[in-house]
């Protein structure tokens, strides 16, 4: 046992990246030189402090409203991680429950849940989340809800087939014969077997959630204008891309590092936890 995932380079690299983002998010009020919403209209679109015309009090320059880019990046990490955590948790919970119900009981229940997934999947995720945001309105909680409502299918589809495979194993029948209730069988026998896949999916979903939040904020239907978000910074910087390209590059870099962290972690966990793949590789 001895946690094979601890020896995976990817897991470590992903964890380090995410830890860095998390530190930025938690310590944002202490690290940020300014309030992320403060506008300094006399100093708009300043370059970073090391460049010609830069101001030392704005280390990474200012945006089109004279807001401090560094402070907004740091506070944007809060938004990104909050959305990533809660929406992956929510989507994972909904998807996992439905996947286990469908895969374990089969029959009509499975059919209904399967068709629901089909219907959901016939919408491109971006389109569906946009439509949902029309109804929900802007706000961090609305973004989280929209991502949960769109992305539960990712969990349900993948986990369902895994649950079906596990349910057919002998030890599950044995548990039933021993008099386990359905609830006990699923929680004690099946869930432990599907957990590695679930953990991987949650990690990948967090990366997806960061991207979706950025997309929604970019279009202006995200967390709302008062909360700093990387997508908003991109939308703002895009207007002035010719004069201050760094304003566009920095939030994109932040999104990339955050998503790469979740992807490396998820990928590493998948390789380390998937016994089949380990067997193939060592063969």
């Amino acid at each position, binding site marked *: 046992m001895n946690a094979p995932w601890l020896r995976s380079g*990817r897991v470590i690299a992903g964890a380090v990246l995410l830890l860095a983002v998390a530190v930025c998010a938690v310590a944002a009020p202490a690290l940020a030189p300014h309030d992320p919403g403060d506008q300094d209209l006399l100093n708009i679109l300043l370059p970073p402090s090391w460049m010609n015309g830069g101001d030392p009090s704005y280390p990474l320059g200012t945006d089109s409203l004279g807001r401090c880019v560094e402070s907004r990046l740091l506070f944007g990490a809060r938004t990104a991680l909050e959305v990533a955590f809660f929406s992956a948790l929510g989507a994972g919970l909904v998807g996992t429950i439905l996947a286990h119900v469908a895969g374990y009981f089969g029959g009509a229940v499975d059919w209904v849940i399967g*068709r629901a997934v*089909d*219907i959901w*999947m*016939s*919408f*491109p*995720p*971006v*389109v569906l989340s*946009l*439509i949902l*945001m*029309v*109804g929900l309105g802007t706000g961090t909680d609305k973004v989280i809800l929209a991502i949960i409502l769109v992305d539960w299918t990712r969990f349900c589809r993948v986990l369902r087939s895994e649950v079906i495979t596990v349910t057919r194993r002998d030890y599950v029948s044995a548990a039933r014969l021993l008099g386990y209730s359905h609830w006990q069988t699923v929680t004690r026998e099946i869930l432990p077997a599907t957990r590695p896949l679930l953990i991987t999916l949650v990690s990948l979903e967090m*990366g997806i959630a960061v*991207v979706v939040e*950025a*997309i929604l904020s*970019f*279009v*202006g*239907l995200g967390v709302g204008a008062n909360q700093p978000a990387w997508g908003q910074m*991109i939308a703002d910087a*895009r207007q002035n*891309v*010719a004069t201050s*390209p760094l304003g*566009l*590059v920095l939030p*994109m870099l932040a*999104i*990339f590092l955050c*998503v*790469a962290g979740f*992807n*490396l972690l998820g*990928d590493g966990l998948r390789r380390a936890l998937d016994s089949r793949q380990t067997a193939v590789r060592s063969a």
Partner: protein
Amino acid sequence: MLRTALLLILRRLPVAMPILLLVSFLLFAALRVLPIDAAAMSLPPTATLAEIAQKRHDMGLDQPIPAQYVIWLGDALHGHFGQSIALRRDAGALLANGLPTTIELAISAMIVASVLGVGGGLLLFASRGTWGEAAGDLLSTLLMSVPDFMWALLLLLVFGVMVPILPFMGRLDAGLTRPSVTGFLMVDAALTLQPAVLWSVIRHMVLPAVALGLAFAPPIARVLRSSLLDVYHDDYIRQARLRGVGETRILLCHALKNASLPTLTLMGVQFGFLFGGTLLIEVIYGYPGIGNLMVDAVRNADLPVIQAVGMSYCVVVIGISMATDAAHQLLDPRSHAR
């Protein structure tokens, strides 16, 4: 071959139609539940409450949602999707304008993704067992962390602003008149023999298509690599090798054909996602497709347009998945038996 393909697609219609109907009803109901008064929005702000009530009655908004849905469905089947509230134009006409543009973009992007994905997959496979394998693996994970809209912005920054060699706004240079035969601008330019227009259309297409293609290539490369690895375990590869067939020939003539099936299935799924991905790419490059139409409609709460555009996304995605299923069955001799 073509007949079999058509038959296979037709056989899927009975499954697809109910899903489409249900999707359209859910979308319709969801949009009607929203606290948006379409009647008040389509009248000037000076309208009295009585006028609004009259308008509601005229628009049929005072009827129950299922009754409204039946009216909408009847109209939609005749090609009438209602009047855009914000643009005061027929939603169907707006859709007919934008859809060919988006389809052209999606197909171009899919070609880019396939070429890059298959090339990358072959490279990944060829480098198995060397240091290149780990490097390629890591690179593909990192590339997958760059979503399509970030590729679009990066390419715009590099090739549009820093080294301005490609246009990044709209789909045609100013001053050129757009030919209209089929609605597909690239096809029309070729049909009407206007090389200047065609060249301009292609140049405007490069950045959006490459941006989308880059985002969807890494998963294709990965699946191709892993199915090639699977195929190489099969006996017929060893057999071919014993017969003295060269490695390159084994890869390209024997293995690739069999490994292409899972890759093709994935590409079908990816194409559905890619079609949704056009939305942001269109916004970023000011591309006049249904993505921009959708975003504007969402911002203006323009319900008829949201409904029409939302449905057309669904129709395309379901159509693609039907075609993928059919192609899979056509290419896999083992599934003929069923």
